[in-house]
């Protein structure tokens, strides 16, 4: 019978109970949905890394010859060096590889990162289509599936490459360019040769080293523009046609630890000793850009999946609390009757606990069932345009069940809190109506300000203090909703700001001509003159300070007008001619400021330089240090331009120019990237809408039920409906205002936390814009007004006779 009573009670209070169910559902839906999403990514990536035996350490060789390492003629890692590393304690396997950039024989000259692998047992390939990697196959190539797809080539097709003195040089650390033996030394640009060769596609592949890949000059991956391919060492082209091919000058060592997981620093020290320091870069797996970027992405999702459900959980609990307390209070006499009839206390207790228990149970169960099965598929399509994984599948975790169980327990506990006191009374006490809550005049009421308040304001203040849980629920609901909306829109703003900052404030050039390596300075000058440009040197560097080390970029300019640094307010600023200027983000990461001393070192060069920070400036995508050419050269460094900037749009092929990055195109690429952000933004807004409607409706329902009698009295006394509506509205507006004021900074904080996880290379400007504030304002108050509109109808048709019948 008590079950019947429960079902009928739920029917009568369906709005509240539906919202408890809904909030419990949403909390778990988001927790398990986003949890399933990022865990799925994590698992896919981990499986991918394990399956392909991803290297633990990459060691890039460095020649004495220059920043970009060895060429055809340079000496690579010898077999003896590889063996020496293999003997180091903790090292399980070592393999050599030659990485170099080549230009694919396609339209727009795409850059392909070629890996001539000794065995491809470490960081092995994942075959999507075609044959497995054959380390002896001299004529075959295993091409990135994403590139092949974008370019419309497949297994069996023959593709051509050229490696020239002018190929993409300033790419990731360790990438080398190939210098043709003939014609480079002292040769004019017009005479330099490029080596051309053709290979047959044997397989289309994914590589775990390229879960994320982006050319350094663009923010977003364009799979038709760059890619990677693996070849057998036997496929290494003869440097000069007719000559027998030699062993490739392996410039990379892939190291696999033996599973004893030696301390990272110790391993690095030992390997350093084994190689006698003759290498340029030692890169651990966590610092591999692809691994790092993907791990950051997962962290970002994890945080959202952990934070957002808390809001819903709080609302579920507060709704539970308010609903149960009121219902139990209204059923006081019923409880007394049941007790008097001899129903055991335990049975009554179970009855009231079952409300919270079953609602939370069904809500959570539905959330666990539906969340991971649906939510991840909202994210995966946009994510797969950035990342490459063999499998996109959500993963389940026992935490989903633990958290669900905790939610069910909490809701049940709240039910207990609501009815426990009543049950401990004697039946006779319970049968008597509860003494009304006595009011006291608070400190506020003794102020002058209080006396000036209208009776409606006084009523509202006292009503709020009478129903604290209800008020708290309203404030938290609006707070959560505002935070979500502000977060959604400020993330959007942030993306737009970054774009404006990067492409309109900082980058004033239209074309960036990436120069080939080993160009003569006269050729560089010719190019510069041809496009009326300015030379810059942009290389990878490492910076050390306070015991911290940070990979960053080093920019040396001739005082260009085409790159305009900005201060922390994103306003253009001037950098000093003497000394080092450092980006704000890098400065923060290293814990340095103006006047502090830092050490820096160019990748591929041995030895560290020291200098003091003269200025801290802000820069969106290229974190690191910058200095003037004069200062750079005064330190004994050689200014070797890597790019020429031009305000003109350069579309023609220029000899010696490896590729041209057009600002207008990159800026379009950025729009594509932000497209993916919108999934999250829409999701946040939808969540905010549900949250606000449920909470405000509930609040309205509760206050209306509680004040119905008072409203009816006032109506009987002749008070106009408009005035009564105003009474309800003003209370709701006050809660909305408080929730809103608290929600805005919370939303901004959330945004800053989320963008902070985008990695160290981005500096996202998180500013609150007036339109965002207005949208959030309109959203919060609009929802509030909408729900109130619904209740104003109820006031108009308030049944005065019914409402004023004797109290039960």
């Amino acid at each position, binding site marked *: 019978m008590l079950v019947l009573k429960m079902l009928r009670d739920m029917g009568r209070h369906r709005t509240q109970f539906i919202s408890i169910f809904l909030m419990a559902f949403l909390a778990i839906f988001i927790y398990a949905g986003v949890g399933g999403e990022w865990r799925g990514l994590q698992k896919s990536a981990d499986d991918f890394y394990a399956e392909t035996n991803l290297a633990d350490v990459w060691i890039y060789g460095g020649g004495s010859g220059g920043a970009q390492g060895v060429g055809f003629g340079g000496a690579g890692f010898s077999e003896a060096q590889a063996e020496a590393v293999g003997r180091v304690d903790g090292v399980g396997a070592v393999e050599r590889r030659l990485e170099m950039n080549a230009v694919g024989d396609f339209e727009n000259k795409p850059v392909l990162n070629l890996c001539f692998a000794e065995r491809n047992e470490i960081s092995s390939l994942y075959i999507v289509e075609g044959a497995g990697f054959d380390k002896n196959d001299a004529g075959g190539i295993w091409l990135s599936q994403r590139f092949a797809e974008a370019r419309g080539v497949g297994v069996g097709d023959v593709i051509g490459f050229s490696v020239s003195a002018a190929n993409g040089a300033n790419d990731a650390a360790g990438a080398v360019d190939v210098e043709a033996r003939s014609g480079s030394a002292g040769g004019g640009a017009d005479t330099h040769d490029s080596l051309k060769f053709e290979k047959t596609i044997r397989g289309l592949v994914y590589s775990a080293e390229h879960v994320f890949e982006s050319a350094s000059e663009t923010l977003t991956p364009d799979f038709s523009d760059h890619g990677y391919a693996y070849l057998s060492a036997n496929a290494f082209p003869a440097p000069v046609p007719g000559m027998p091919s030699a062993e490739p000058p392996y410039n990379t060592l892939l190291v696999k630890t033996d599973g004893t997981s030696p301390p990272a620093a110790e391993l690095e020290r030992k390997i350093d000793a084994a190689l006698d320091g003759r290498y340029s870069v030692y890169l651990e797996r966590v610092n591999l850009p692809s691994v790092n970027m993907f791990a950051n992405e997962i962290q970002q999702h994890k945080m959202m999946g952990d934070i957002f459900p808390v809001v819903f959980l709080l609302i579920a609990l507060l709704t539970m609390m308010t609903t149960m307390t009121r219902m139990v209070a209204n059923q006081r006499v019923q409880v007394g009757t049941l007790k008097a009839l001899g129903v055991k206390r335990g049975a009554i207790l179970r009855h009231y606990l079952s409300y919270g228990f079953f609602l939370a149970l069904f809500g959570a169960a539905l959330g666990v069932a539906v969340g991971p099965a649906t939510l991840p598929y909202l994210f995966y399509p946009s994510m797969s345009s950035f990342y490459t994984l063999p499998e996109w599948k959500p993963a389940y975790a026992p935490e989903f069940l633990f958290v669900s169980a905790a939610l069910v327990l909490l809701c049940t506990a709240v039910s207990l809190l609501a009815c426990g006191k009543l049950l401990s009374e004697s039946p006779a006490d319970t049968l008597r109506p509860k*003494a*009304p*809550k*006595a*009011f006291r*005049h608070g400190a506020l009421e003794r102020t002058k300000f209080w006396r000036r308040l209208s*009776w*409606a304001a*006084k*009523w509202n203040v*006292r*009503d709020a203090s*009478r129903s604290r849980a209800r008020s708290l629920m309203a404030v938290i609901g609006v707070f959560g909703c505002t935070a979500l909306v502000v977060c959604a829109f400020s993330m959007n703003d942030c993306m737009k700001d970054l774009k404006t900052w990067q492409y309109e404030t900082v980058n004033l050039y239209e074309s960036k001509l990436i120069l080939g390596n080993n160009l003569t300075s006269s050729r560089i000058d010719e190019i510069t003159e041809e496009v009326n440009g300015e030379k810059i040197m942009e290389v990878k560097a490492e910076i050390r300070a306070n015991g911290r080390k940070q990979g960053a970029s080093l920019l040396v300019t001739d005082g260009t007008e085409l790159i305009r640094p900005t201060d922390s307010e994103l306003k253009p600023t001037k950098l000093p001619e003497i000394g080092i200027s450092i980006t704000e983000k890098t400065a923060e990461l290293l814990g340095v400021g103006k006047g502090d001393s830092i050490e820096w070192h160019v990748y591929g060069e041995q030895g560290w330089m020291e200098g003091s920070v003269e200025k801290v400036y802000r820069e969106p995508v290229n974190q690191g240090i910058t200095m003037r050419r004069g200062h750079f050269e005064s330190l004994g460094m050689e200014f070797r331009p890597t790019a020429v900037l031009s305000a003109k749009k350069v579309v023609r092929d220029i000899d010696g120019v490896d590729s041209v990055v057009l600002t207008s195109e990159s800026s379009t690429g950025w729009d594509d990237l932000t497209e993916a952000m919108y999934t999250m933004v829409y999701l946040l807004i939808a969540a905010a809408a549900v949250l606000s409607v449920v909470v405000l409706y509930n609040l309205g329902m509760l206050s209306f039920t509680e004040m119905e*009698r*008072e409203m*009816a*009295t*006032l*109506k*009987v*006394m*002749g*008070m*106009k*409906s408009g*005035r009564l509506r105003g009474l309800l509205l003003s209370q709701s507006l006050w809660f909305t205002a408080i929730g809103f004021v608290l929600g805005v900074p919370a939303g901004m904080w959330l945004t800053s936390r989320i963008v902070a996880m985008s990695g160290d290379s981005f500096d996202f400007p998180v500013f609150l814009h007036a339109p965002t504030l207005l949208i959030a304002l309109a959203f919060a108050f609009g929802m509030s007004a909408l729900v109130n509109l619904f209740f104003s109808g109820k006031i*108009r048709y308030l049944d*005065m*006779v019914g409402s*004023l019948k*004797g*109290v039960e």
Partner: protein
Amino acid sequence: MSIERTEKNEIIRFERVTREYGTGAHVLKAVDDVSFAIREGEFVVILGPSGAGKSTLLNLLGGMDFASSGKIFVGGDNIVGLPDDRLTEYRAAHVGFVFQFYNLIPTLTAFENIALTRNIVKKPLDARNALEMVGLADHADQFPAQLSGGEQQRVSIARAVAKNPTMLLCDEPTGALDSETGAVVLEMLQGMSRERGKTVVIVTHNAALANAADRVIRIRNGRISAVEENESPKAVSEVAW
């Protein structure tokens, strides 16, 4: 609103008023073809057993319920069929309600409960004077929950009177009070009629009160069984309980 001439001093007239609930075979006539009149300043008691239709009659008069047929004239104007907002205006200007369970606003003090009439009518009585009138001037800052039932009912009367209405409509005003306190409240209501000239209509099932009324309307099964005029009504204090 059409103005019809009424008998001198007559303030209220019910003409063949019926109030039906439900439809078809399940029609219940709570008030069935009722006609009577009340003069200005009278102290009227509507008597009848539970379920006789007394409260419905009062609600119809107070503009809280709608008559199914008939006419109800107040001060010459028929209030049957008035739209909601006109009825609200009517209640504000003419009717002071006193409820069985007082219906004070729990979050407002005694004073504030009375003072809120300022938001309903243009020229209410001063709230302090109204409180003094019911002898509760020193309870002004107390909340309803801090007052006894009788005190709450006195505040409720003060609130009704503060609007300065044409009539006071009281639905079982002593129903929740002990007899002693009830007597105080009734004396007060009688005083409103005698000293202030208000028309006071009280619904009760306490037959003893009949002796104190100027006019007694007896109702049974929704119909009027008798309307008696009392030539020499007694003071409430003289009425035996």
